[in-house]
């Protein structure tokens, strides 16, 4: 059994409107997503803004309540647990946010910040608080005098290190890293990625890495889920994504990433059309409005995510039209 098993997870947000601010519809942020994460694995979630990747991460660790579906964490379904029952699990799953400034309390020093967390979850006896805090600060590569500073005194990269120290303080087993390096400069980004990689090895963490940057995901993760408008459209091993990716959207994402070589200039893959609104998605495949290979049945029915290991949700790729025609004859 996998460490984490997500089955048919759905998250809808109510959309309010009109004079009375009544619920007039729902935004389909995550639409029936199923996948596993094994212990010690790094799973990457990639997709563009609004595809539901962050919502998926937050719903998985119950920062948001799922609308439907099951979340099995180490064999226990935590999807419907109440606040008290959830508490022991909270310690075991932590999240690192994109913006390290708004996710750290500006009025707490680093010491106070870490202390709060350590004492709340009773990780160490009070006498050992101070050495544990200093150890944590050292682990994430900050100077010992950082303990008495406030978040605003640090640069973006250092703040992200504090965010990581905060997540690590309670000895979690699962870390959700939600765009942890997107706000950082390239040279700092590499430092933070290396740090995350080292800590993952050192503490045997299971990581779910959410990012819009396919290059970073490819570098960091073992397996990739590609999301589009609340659906997982492809699941593939990270080292095969360049050769074996099949879904037209994954291929477009790969092609739209500018290559770091001026001698390899090729026309970027330019998708026509716009992303449909998650408030009122069209029936059928969510990618139909921009897909270069769109067919009639894509407009009627959502293709299932199929395959063994490498899963793809696409009618055209999974059963090419001529095969269907041949079967019908």
């Amino acid at each position, binding site marked *: 059994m996998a460490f984490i098993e997500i089955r048919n997870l759905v998250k809808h947000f109510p959309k309010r409107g009109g004079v009375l601010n009544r619920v007039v519809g729902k935004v389909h942020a995550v639409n029936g997503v199923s996948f596993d994460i094994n212990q010690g694995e790094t799973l990457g979630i990639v997709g563009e803004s609004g595809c539901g990747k962050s919502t998926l991460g937050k719903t998985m660790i119950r920062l948001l309540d799922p609308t439907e579906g099951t979340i099995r964490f180490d064999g226990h379904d935590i999807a419907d647990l109440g606040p008290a029952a959830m508490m022991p699990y909270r310690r075991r799953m932590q999240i690192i946010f994109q913006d390290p400034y708004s996710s750290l309390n500006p009025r707490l020093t680093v010491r106070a910040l870490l202390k709060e967390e350590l004492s709340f979850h009773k990780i160490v006896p009070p006498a050992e608080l101070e050495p544990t805090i200093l150890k944590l600060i050292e682990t994430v590569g900050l100077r010992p005098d950082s303990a008495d500073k406030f978040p605003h005194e640090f640069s973006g990269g250092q703040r992200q290190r504090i965010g990581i120290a905060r997540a690590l303080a309670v000895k979690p087993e699962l870390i959700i890293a939600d765009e942890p390096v997107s706000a950082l400069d390239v*040279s700092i980004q*590499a430092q933070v990625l290396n740090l995350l990689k080292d800590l993952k090895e050192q503490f045997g963490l299971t990581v779910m890495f959410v990012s*819009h940057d396919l290059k970073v995901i490819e*570098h960091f993760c073992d397996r990739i889920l590609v999301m589009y408008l609340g659906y997982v459209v492809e699941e593939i091993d990270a080292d095969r994504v360049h050769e074996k990716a099949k879904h037209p959207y994954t291929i477009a*994402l790969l092609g739209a990433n*500018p*290559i770091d070589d*001026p*001698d390899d200039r090729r026309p970027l893959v330019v998708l026509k059309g*716009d992303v449909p609104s998650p408030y009122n998605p069209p029936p059928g495949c969510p990618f139909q409005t921009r897909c270069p290979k769109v067919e009639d049945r894509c407009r009627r029915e959502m293709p299932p995510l199929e395959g063994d290991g490498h899963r793809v949700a696409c009618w055209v790729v999974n059963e090419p039209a001529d095969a269907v025609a041949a079967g019908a004859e």
Partner: protein
Amino acid sequence: MNDRSPCLRVRHLCTSFRTDRGPVTAVDDITFDVYPGETLGIVGESGCGKTVTSKSIMRLLPDHITRYSGEADFRGTNLLTADESKMRRVRGDSIAMIFQEPMTSLNPVFTVGWQLDEALKYHTSLNKRQRRERSVEMLRLVDIPNPEKRIREYPHQLSGGMRQRVMIAIALCCEPEILIADEPTTALDVTIQAQILDLMNGLKSKLNTAIILITHDLGVIAQTADRVMVMYAGRVIESASVHDIFHRPQHPYTKALLDSIPKAGGTEKQGDRLPAIRGMVPSLFELPKGCRFQERCDYAEQRCIDLEPELVTGDDGRQVRCHFPLDANAKLTVGATS
């Protein structure tokens, strides 16, 4: 390339600000030329002065705390000393600028059409009907579907990519000689970024516009720029053709920066560490005496600590600011600090 005359010549540009902690020089002695139909890429990390450079040329920085020196020669006028009425005629007309945040740079209370019309009203002698036709034509040029309908819409009704395309339409409606694009795609998704870059490349060849492209994304530079200027802590540290920058970088910083990006489908194995650059950019208030990159450089020697290197121009027109430039022909592994 050198037989054409540049449309913008910047010489020894210094921009300093008066702050509570004393004066600080954000851009220090920058010299470059921009040629028609060419894209000049300016790369660097946050705080290196790339945006200040572009805003100095446009004189968009707050006057009361900013001091300029040097020269930015555009058609015989020094933009750094020109009076405000002259600048108004230049801005949006001969030199246009697009910014990173398309939402905050469009006015939310006016329609797209109104904002396009405003630029045309100030800078052209077209009448109302002609201006409207031109607006629709511009929106069509930047691939906005249904321009007749979109022209009556407000910025909040458009998606991020469409807003940026509207910004480009406004910037280009007076056919500027120079387009300054400051991180034009940073806030956008990659598939939308591809659309915008494709559009900018097309316009460059169609209208022979010179583009100054400011970005921290080396992939974008590799795909669009002709020449590249790398900045670090307010200084130009290397300037060369895009090919040389990527394949024969001479400054250790340029090389280390290139190495620190994860390679797409690259040769490195998963689980490998990235060759990161240690430390961080020095504060502009506490610049070291010698080379500004010394603390993070693997090649720093005593001379780098004592003396700041000059920007040296080589025979091939390449410029580098380093006492020990990397041998262009040798394969080097720089910056692999783990």
